[in-house]
């Protein structure tokens, strides 16, 4: 085999490895941002606490590390696609990852902004602040989520521990990152197509049989000594709509 042929194969193999690494990082980012959303949903409610806010900061820092690493690697991947001869599928796959990454950053950014507003609106500096927290029925915003975040692994080695930015700077940083990336790489995002058809996620079987919200909302009604279950949605009278929970 000619040397040129071999080097092209090497390049392709390396690009595929980088691609897999980026895909795994994208999954990790999704995981971290979903946990972040669950945590932020408790801000301002009765489940809010300083522990919750610390956990939010740590989750944010992890997301920041993943984002910066992933943006660098994706940039390198896409510019490599430009310079060296690439198969069309490889190029398309890289563009797809690019669009997914930018969508994830946008989504995360909106949650960050909400978090900033909520933390500003509900400061927890004094004990009296707790009186104005909203009684939502939630008792604990942390359980399980902190552990889930801790299990997330970044698929590359973080060599230098750069200090993570505070909330305002984080938001500003992400905004400038988004605009910079969109300017530097001319990817036509409308040309990216979904890999799975509509309604495909219905077939993904959950790890264990999941209760529907209706099941969980069942109220125990005690009548004539024997108790029976009634759905909380239509307690007594039927609301007239097909109750799809």
């Amino acid at each position: 085999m000619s040397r040129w042929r071999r080097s092209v194969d090497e390049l392709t193999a390396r690009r595929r490895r980088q691609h897999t690494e980026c895909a795994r990082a994208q999954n990790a980012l999704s995981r971290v941002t979903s946990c972040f959303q669950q945590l932020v949903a408790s801000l301002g409610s009765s489940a809010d606490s300083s522990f919750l806010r610390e956990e939010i900061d740590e989750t944010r820092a992890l997301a920041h590390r993943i984002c910066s690493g992933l943006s660098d690697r994706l940039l390198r991947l896409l510019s490599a696609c430009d310079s060296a001869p690439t198969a069309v599928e490889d190029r398309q796959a890289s563009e797809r990852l690019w669009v997914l990454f930018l969508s994830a950053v946008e989504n995360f950014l909106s949650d960050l902004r909400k978090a900033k507003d909520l933390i500003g609106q509900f400061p927890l500096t004094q004990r009296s602040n707790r009186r104005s927290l909203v009684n939502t029925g939630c008792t604990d915003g942390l359980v399980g989520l902190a552990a889930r975040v801790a299990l997330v692994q970044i698929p590359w080695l973080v060599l230098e521990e750069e200090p993570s930015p505070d909330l305002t700077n984080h938001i500003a940083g992400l905004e400038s990152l988004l605009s910079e990336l969109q300017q530097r790489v001319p990817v036509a995002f409308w040309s990216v197509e979904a890999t799975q058809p509509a309604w495909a996620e219905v077939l993904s079987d959950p790890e264990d049989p999941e209760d529907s919200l209706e099941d969980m909302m069942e109220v125990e009604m005690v009548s004539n000594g024997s108790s029976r279950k009634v759905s909380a949605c239509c307690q007594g009278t039927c609301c007239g709509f097909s109750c799809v929970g």
Partner: protein
Amino acid sequence: MTIKNALRDYGQRYRPRMACLRKAEKVLLEMQDPCAGVKSQPQRLVITIIPHAITGEDIIAWLADRFQIDPQEASSFGSMLVALGYIYPLQDHKRLVIKPDTSLYRFQTPYFWPTQQWPVEDTDYAIYLAKRNIRKKGILELHEQEQYNHLHKWMNHKWDFIVMQAKEQYRAAKERKKPDRVVFDCQERAYWVVHRPPVRKHSQKLPLNNFVEVFEHDLPRPWHSIFIGFKSKFELDYSKKSNFVWASFLSEPFTCRSKIVGENLAFWEGCEDLKWGTAVAMKEKAEQIYKTFLARGAPRWINIDGKTMEITVKGLKHPHRYVLDAAQTHIYMLMKKDSYGRYLKSPVFKETLKKAVNPEEHKFNEVQLEQNARNRRPSLSPIIIRQQEQEQRAKMAASAPVDITQVMSKLSKQGKEMGPRHSK
């Protein structure tokens, strides 16, 4: 990465609603006070007990006591809080009203509060629908299915992200304790009932989404249904009982005064839309407003004085964002000083408010029922109606002359044609 869908943005996010939302939030926070707030009780479910449930009658009693108003007004106010999304019902969750009985409600978490600076993103809705798909194995309601398909089409480029995020959010929610998970699911569901309600096709009250009500009456009139927006500029004054006005249900104008108010409000809405809307659509919007409200013999003519009319018409020759400001200010002052105040005190309004809070049943006889059944046709989805309107406008623009008065006369002829078809 997000293609903003201009079609469904009614210009709402540009409306200055922040003032009234902040007032509602202040009331909400007062209700939380452990001593002086609303009494709460635990909600007993089969699997667990969830605290902080409140009854409808307690909410109404608290509001009536706090603002020194009668239970009827307190009930409307409470329903407004529910319709905005600050409180959600635990039973009968699709009807956003306060019931003056032991029905249970809960406070919505601040993350899901409605506020101007966080526009309700379609991406989030798509993720929510995908999550519901996973959980309910594809059994979604009709309007949700339609929305899902629509979003899948025009968000196709980020659909993989949406599905991935939905799966991760689903798994993250499962990590929480069961009662907290139930609460979060209820909160999320309530949020989307407020912000993405199903579009009703028959004469029923819509939840107070973005303060727009659609009423359908069987009265003779030139148009079949009318959109009237509530304008947050007419602020509510909490401190004075007599001035406590929250005209959340403005019905079909069938008297002179209420008709005038209706036209003025619609004109005001049009002006706001022009001010805050896109530059591209501006010229067209200005023309539309002129044809509908200002021109001689316009179908919804508003009464502004000669000088203001002169200035406005002159300005419309070269329309810009603020060309209708003079007319808008005039209408605002008119309403503030005169017609709106009188309208609110009028028996007509009191009657309609009563009817809105407790709508009476239709009393159709057999013959009418048969006729209704015969005439009933599945109405077009608003997306298609809007597309048709756009096509019609494009056709008119292509064939019509440039002169604004000629266009207007053409439209008034068309209006006369449409008249007999729509009267019952």
